[in-house]
């Protein structure tokens, strides 16, 4: 059908939040999601969670240390990052975020250090790789339960603030109806938690013998719950949009509904979530597969929201078409972040091997 209006001359605005931003939101989400998975074993001392919680803490640490670099790289003036601290602007959630990230990371590093100290000392005593450095870092290798709890509290405050600000700063952008829905922070949180569980499952699978099967099943149940919640939130979003009960959701739906690309993305997201849920319930031992699926869904969701969202013109007709550039503004942003992630993973697991972290032993017991 020939449309009544055909745009003949207009500007196609380039995306301004680059794949670096997707990587940041993905990694910081994985970090706080995985950190929450560290709580049952390390803070609440739930039986059977010790090993998996320590693996989750490693995931939180690697992702948490990588994420701010991606955020910095997304700035077009990265050398001016100090302006965030010199010119605090209370009306901007991004400005607050610049203060929340250090709170979270300080807590996370402290918490991880306190949790891994005894293991670092044992690693040094047994003459593992970089034993000297491990001994220095262990600083006696004592366990301090009170200090760990205090660090956990600080990290919790930081994680909650980071989860809040990353969701709200995007949700507040009224100019982009797709982002401007109150359910967006919930969707970010649920997929982040699922991604955190997914990464812990992948680490668990990498352990000698494929990890503790009981822990895998326990994690599969938790992952199934997140997928169920994700589906429910999706249904609520769709019902609010289709029924017109919520004008912001209706507007968001109307913006993407005509696009074939968006239909494919929506179907993809639903199928991936349903498959993850089904596998987690029916084959809870498939830890690696469901872990990877959860990670994929968490990344895809952010890619679709950020890059896809910026493909919707605010005033012009139709959609902009985005092609991933191969340089630093595109593919290299993704590859570079992944490279840094791998580097940090290698450094940390050299200092404290994965099997030592995942060994089901109570910290400091």
């Amino acid at each position, binding site marked *: 059908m*020939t*449309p*009544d*209006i*055909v*745009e*003949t*001359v*207009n*500007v*196609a*605005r*380039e995306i*301004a*939040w680059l794949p670096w931003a997707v990587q940041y939101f993905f990694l910081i989400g994985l970090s706080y999601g995985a950190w929450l998975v560290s709580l049952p074993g390390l803070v609440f001392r739930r039986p059977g969670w010790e090993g998996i919680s320590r693996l989750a803490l490693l995931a939180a640490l690697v992702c948490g240390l990588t994420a701010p670099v991606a955020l910095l790289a*997304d*700035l*077009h*003036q990265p050398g*001016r*990052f100090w*302006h*965030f601290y*010199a*010119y605090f*602007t209370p*009306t*901007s*959630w*991004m*400005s607050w*975020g*610049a203060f929340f990230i250090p709170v979270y990371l300080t807590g996370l590093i402290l918490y991880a250090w306190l949790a891994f100290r005894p293991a670092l000392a044992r690693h040094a005593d047994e003459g593992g790789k970089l034993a000297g450095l491990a001994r220095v870092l262990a600083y006696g290798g004592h366990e301090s339960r009170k200090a760990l709890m205090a660090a956990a509290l600080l990290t919790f405050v930081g994680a909650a603030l980071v989860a809040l600000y990353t969701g709200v*700063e995007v949700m*507040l*952008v*009224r*100019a*982009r109806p797709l*982002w401007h829905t109150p359910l967006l922070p919930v969707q970010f949180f649920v997929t982040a938690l699922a991604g955190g569980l997914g990464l812990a499952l992948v680490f668990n699978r990498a352990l000698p013998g494929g990890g503790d099967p009981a822990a895998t099943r326990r994690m599969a149940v938790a992952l199934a719950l997140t997928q169920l919640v994700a589906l429910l939130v999706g249904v609520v979003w769709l019902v609010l949009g289709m029924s017109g009960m919520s004008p912001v959701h209706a507007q968001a739906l109307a*913006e993407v509904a005509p696009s074939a690309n968006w239909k494919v993305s929506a179907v993809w997201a639903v199928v991936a979530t349903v498959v993850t849920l089904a596998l987690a319930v029916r084959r809870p031992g498939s830890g690696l597969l469901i872990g990877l699926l959860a990670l994929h869904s968490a990344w895809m969701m952010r890619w679709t929201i950020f890059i896809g969202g*910026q493909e919707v*013109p*605010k*005033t*012009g*007709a*139709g*959609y*902009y*078409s985005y092609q991933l*550039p191969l*340089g630093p*503004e*595109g593919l290299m942003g993704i590859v570079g972040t992944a490279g840094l992630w791998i580097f940090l993973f290698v450094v940390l697991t050299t200092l404290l091997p994965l099997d030592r972290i995942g060994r089901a032993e109570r910290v400091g017991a």
Partner: protein
Amino acid sequence: MKDEEPREVSASRRAFLRGIPVLTAAAAALPAPALAADGKHHWAMLVDVRKCIGCQACTVACIQENAVPEGSFRTIVSTYSVKLTDADQPAGTYMLPRLCNHCEEPPCIPVCPVGATFKREDGIVAVDGDRCVGCAYCVQACPYDARFINHATNKADKCTFCAHRVDAGLLPACVETCVGGARIFGDLNDPQGELRRRLDAAKAEVKVLKPEQGTEPRVFYIGLDERFQGKVEGQGTLWQPRKAHG
């Protein structure tokens, strides 16, 4: 009667000739924009869409004046082919000049994490290039797609109403060059100014883009078709500006 006719003609010719120096002198004496005599200025623009011929002279003038890098635009005349049902020809052309709306409630300002974007006392929304970190939050927050990241400076960029020219008593480049006289720039606080008079005269016809956003734009339009007031429903342009980088 025969004697009177040439007298009338010559009288009118005399009046005309007498008027020329007055007109030219007045034109020379007038400061370029219709400045308010005193008090604070509040700059705004009125775009009479009916007079726009889509020549893009404003687009080019803006690029030249502000050294806007290739592929980026501070202003552009969006052009649409519109199906006609009440005419012999199948379609007509609709032109809509777009630029920063210098909103009274600009959504780009509160989101800026370092306070780099601000509203001047004279109503112009500006970016402090020395402070901007290029986070592009303002680019996302602008409902008019008026902002972009300038790849030459790596900072947020947008129309400034040619503040440097206005401060020097000149008109913005796009207004200066507008062939059809579609862009009228002036001071909202000047009751005698052309902008104020035109706005008051066309009160019922004056519209703004996306009024539901509550941004209170200070770029007004006459002849703005409702179908173009928000996001346009239609087929998107196939043309994309050549990337100046990457």
